[in-house]
């Protein structure tokens, strides 16, 4: 891996998530092949790369949905690869996660979806929860949508509601899996702005997987380019862009021409 800088502001920050030599195999396919990554506290780290390079699988290791075959993940000083059920749940309580399709519960209203983590995991009263949920919905621009079901919302609104649910418990770490998939450029821009706004407002450490290159560079403090199951390039967006890496340039060209095959064939 070529590390080409410290962070977006040029200052040294502490590491919230540290990944070392992470490997995972599905059958005969080695999906993660020794991933090394540092996600700095209070910064947005974006993982980019062609389809099938292992970005989402890596994120599923970071949010503890998958267990690695080998390697180490340290989150806030805790080696989570050694933890079992209850220990994992304790770490998970520090997470907020925005899934690719939102993963809102379709049998619940927007209000119930956003309130869900508080209802299930805290002893907060009904009134207190209602106030917090309304505040959070206002924060993501969904005032007045409390009683709608996810199926009644547009794609962008579903993402906003899912983001509100991810942020409702004041997590330290926010993970986003392709948050702008299926959105038009205007809505993509507004989701990016909302992510940056939320990160700054709540002081979050953000780890984002995105295919939305180079638009996502505008809100990222650090970029990690993943290729064939490992990190090929890491640094600030400017540093990664200036690295003149042949594989990364071909990936960018593939994205720019809209030819995913070029990018995937890397």
């Amino acid at each position, binding site marked *: 891996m070529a590390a080409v800088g410290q962070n977006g502001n040029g200052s040294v920050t502490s590491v919230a998530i540290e990944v070392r030599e992470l490997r995972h195999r599905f059958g005969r396919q080695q999906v993660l092949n020794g991933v090394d990554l540092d996600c700095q506290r209070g910064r947005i780290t974006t993982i980019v790369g062609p389809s099938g390079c292992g970005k989402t699988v890596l994120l*599923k290791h970071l949010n503890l949905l998958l267990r690695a075959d080998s390697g180490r993940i340290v989150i806030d000083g805790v080696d989570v690869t050694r933890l079992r059920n209850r220990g994992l749940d304790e770490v998970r309580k520090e997470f907020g*996660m925005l*899934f690719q399709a939102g993963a809102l519960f379709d049998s619940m209203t927007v209000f119930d979806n956003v309130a869900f983590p508080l209802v299930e*995991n805290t002893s907060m009263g009904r009134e207190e929860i209602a106030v917090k949920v309304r505040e959070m919905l206002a924060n993501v621009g969904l005032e007045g949508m409390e009683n709608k079901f996810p199926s009644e919302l547009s794609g962008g609104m579903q993402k906003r509601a899912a983001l509100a649910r991810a942020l409702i418990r004041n997590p330290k770490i926010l993970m986003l899996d392709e948050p702008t998939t299926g959105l038009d450029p205007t809505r993509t821009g507004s989701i990016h702005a909302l992510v940056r706004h939320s990160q700054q407002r709540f002081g979050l450490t953000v780890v984002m997987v995105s295919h939305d290159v180079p638009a996502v560079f505008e809100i990222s403090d650090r970029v990690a380019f993943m290729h064939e199951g490992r990190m090929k390039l890491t640094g600030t967006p400017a540093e990664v862009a200036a690295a003149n890496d042949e594989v990364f340039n071909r990936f960018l060209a593939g994205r720019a021409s809209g030819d995913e095959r070029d990018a995937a064939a890397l």
Partner: protein
Amino acid sequence: MSRIVELIERLGALVIDNVTALGNFVLFLATALWCAATPPYKLRLTIRQIRTIGAESIVLVALIGAFTGMVLGLQGYNTLSRFGSEGALGTVVALVLVRELGPVLAALMVTARAGSAMAAELGSMQATEQVDALAVMAINPIQYLVSPRVIAGIISFPLLTSIFDVIGIWGGYLIGVGLMGAPAGSYLNGIAQNMSGHDIMSGLYKALVFGLVVMWVCCYKGYHAQRMATGVSRATTEAVVLSSVLILAWDYFLTSILL
């Protein structure tokens, strides 16, 4: 020689895959039961599932029970009248329903109505990452999604079977006595004198086991559906087929034990 080695390898892989799948299947139920027995208890979710599996199936089960009883009344009267034993009609209808047809048919109906919907719902939740969302929120998906359904099945199936039995006996009376002319007194007295508590309990034990098996299979298939539309439809089909086969297979084993 290499072909033989390849054949042995494939056979070995097949055996390992199936043993692993069976182990996962059993572990799934063990986890669901363990989660049901440990806090936080999901009482509200369990009651909601009892409504979905039990209360919302009452009309269907009652309808099937009534027609089954009516057919038994008709067939039973025609057969028994050949031997001049019309007086035994009540006993025959009641015993066949309570010991055998009640638990089996009620279970098959609930599998078709609620089991299939359950497998499809869980499969769809898996496909849209809702199950992963629960896990990331530090909520045990098995405890939240599966345990309440299994407990609701164990509670609902015996109750639905009881409804099936009562309405079936009433259906048999309606046709046997009302239409065919069997003596009303001997129909009811025959049931009171010849049906024991053991007969009733053996039917309810069966219903309890079927409730567990159907919920286990339907939840397992839905929970492990492949994350695509065809995966959900396949899981639903497999859940209904496997549940139905297991109901009939377990019926034989339980009958041989409870006789």
